[in-house]
């Protein structure tokens, strides 16, 4: 049996190797995604365009302006008059306007008008402006960021991208490739061979599993050496979790391929039951804490949520294996359940 299984794996390998473009795509795309997001996407707010409206240019106004210009956070966009405030904000030429009162010198009264269309930027800008222009005992506090002190948003995206890419390669690619054999009718040919049906499926998965592991290695290396993600929770723990998640994704792909009759159906099904939930419910982009309670329950059954949670803890916060036991347990349970479902459906279909 060993020999037969290995020859089936070889067949699948050849399928993939003969299609160098797909190979290239599968290997290069994660790298490009990680690098681009690592270096460009950031949720930090800086270079806020600020216009100042100060009818009286007193010394105090000049000093406040100097303080504004001294930091990297703001870009001074010139003095404007009151009627221009709306135009500036509306056209996006400024995202905040500081209005200093006529008697600013003595009373220190000022108003900040922000472009509320961009909610979080508005809030953060408000805080920064408050801090720089002063007042209200701001200087009594010293703020410090623990973990991720340079506030690289890439840290947040990498676990999400891992969760997404593995699902894509393992679940979608395998299901499509299995369904393609069905569509072209070659599946029947394979089934009449003396190899157990389960092995056919297993041999389909191994190459994609290997590809994903290569991707994992590349991404981890990049994350550690190029993006300085600490990976302080232990590389082996990360790999362990990833392998469990990969098996889960493969099982999911199997379930889909058992149900779907055509490649398009397999794709749409994968997109609907996997991609959308992962994008929306996994915490990759949007914090699950903010969801209404009914939707929050949905996130509890999405495997990617637990994987991404665990990866964040292991890669960034650097806590030990003990803090991710819950996530690990749930992932494992879901993996086993899906595997069982996949195997059951598979044998049903063959006998029926």
């Amino acid at each position: 049996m060993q020999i037969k299984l290995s020859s089936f794996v070889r067949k699948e390998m050849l399928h993939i190797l003969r299609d160098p473009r797909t190979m290239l795509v599968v290997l290069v795309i994660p790298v490009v995604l990680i690098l681009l997001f690592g270096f460009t996407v950031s949720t930090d707010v800086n270079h806020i365009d600020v216009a100042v409206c100060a009818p009286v240019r007193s010394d105090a106004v000049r000093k406040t302006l100097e303080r504004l210009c001294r930091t990297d956070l703001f870009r001074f966009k010139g003095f404007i008059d009151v009627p221009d405030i709306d135009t500036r904000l509306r056209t996006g030429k400024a995202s905040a306007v500081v209005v200093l009162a006529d008697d600013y010198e003595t009373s220190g009264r000022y108003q900040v008008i922000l472009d509320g269309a961009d909610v979080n930027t508005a809030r953060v800008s408000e805080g920064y402006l408050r801090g720089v222009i002063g007042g209200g005992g701001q200087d009594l506090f010293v703020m410090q960021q623990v973990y991720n002190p340079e506030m690289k948003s890439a840290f947040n995206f990498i676990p999400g991208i891992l969760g997404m890419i593995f699902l894509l390669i393992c679940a979608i690619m395998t299901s499509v490739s299995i369904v393609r054999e069905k569509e072209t009718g070659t599946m029947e040919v394979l089934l009449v061979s003396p190899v157990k049906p389960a092995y056919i499926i297993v041999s389909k998965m191994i190459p994609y599993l290997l590809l994903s592991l290569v991707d994992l290695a590349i991404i981890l290396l990049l994350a550690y050496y190029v993006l300085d993600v600490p990976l302080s929770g232990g590389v082996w723990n990360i790999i362990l979790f990833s392998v469990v998640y990969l098996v889960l994704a493969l099982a999911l792909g199997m379930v889909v391929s058992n149900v779907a009759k055509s490649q398009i159906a397999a794709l749409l099904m994968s997109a609907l039951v996997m991609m959308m939930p992962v994008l929306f419910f996994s915490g990759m982009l949007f914090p699950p804490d903010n969801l209404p309670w009914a939707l929050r329950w949905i996130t509890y059954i999405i495997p990617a949520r637990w994987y991404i949670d665990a990866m964040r803890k292991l890669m960034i916060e650097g806590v030990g294996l003990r803090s991710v036991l819950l996530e690990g347990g749930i992932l494992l349970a879901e993996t086993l359940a899906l595997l069982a479902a996949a195997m059951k459906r598979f044998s049903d279909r063959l006998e029926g």
Partner: protein
Amino acid sequence: MGSLKFLIRKEMIQFRRNKFLPRLIFAFPVVIMLVAPLIANMDVKGVKLAVVDMDRSELSSRIRSHLGASDNLSLRLVTDDYHEAFCLLEAGKADVILSIPAGFEHSFASGQPEKIKVDANAVNATRGTLGAQYAVLAAGGALREMNPTLQAEEMSVRYFYNETLDYRFYMIPAFIVILILLVCCFIPALNLVQEKEKGTIEQINVTPVSKLDFTLSKLIPYWVIGLVVISEAILTVGLVYGLWPAGNIGGIYLAAFLFALAMSGFAVTVANFSDTLQQSIFVMFFFVMLFMLMGGLLTPIGSMPAWAQWVTQAFPTRHFIAIMRSLYLKGTTVAELGINYLGLVILGIFFSITAMVSYRKQE
């Protein structure tokens, strides 16, 4: 040009005969626009706070009660052991630690106050920054009560265009963009690659249909679908969330049309270069992620490095998201957004041309 009419009819018939697609086109936008605004909430609320009070004075308890009263903070722990608070933070059960140093009240009264330390878990940068700000604001309120001289400067804040800072209003226009992006990217690409895999494209290739006609017949249906989808989305959002565009509705449709032009052209280009479904999906997935995350959907374009900001000029999503947000919320005029429209026009023409040129029909 005569054959174009029949080719489009063919596409329409194929579309109608498909069991899944018509339903998808009608249900998908409504469902997404109903659910997405609930999910895409990056509002920072319920920041979990641990207070390390090493002072245990009247002032520090006043600070604590101010912190506890804040809407945005939820006080999880009060302790005098910094280590305990830090363990909580490590376990993810606290986002922010505010530590009041021993002897703070005394030093505050003497006019040489020691600093209050605020530690934020910045794994999620926005949550960290804003959480720390909330804590500082609330604690500052307590200090101001005790020492009126701190109140010397007064600040008032106003938010234009979205006075209550409702995060949903920020995301809804962008979600309409994503909707059109998904529909106009994936469906044309899958449609074309499927014709390739089934071999029906060969049958077209042996007819005297010109490159232009064939490409147009693959594009035009999606421009129509794009406009249907955006109408559905605008109606759903208006009726359910009460958000109607503040700006010119014609401007929105113009932008949507140009965007659909660019995206479907792009999709057909990718399909022309792919031989199998697998290839086209992976490539599409890559670009959709790129278009979404680097187009300013979630993170401000302004905080990217300069070179990356230049690159995003080539992303149709960047222009369309900017247009939609401005038109929907701020009521900006089309003329004021001229540069973004220009960008969409250029990209639309560019991708339509690449779609046509990359279609390799042996003449």
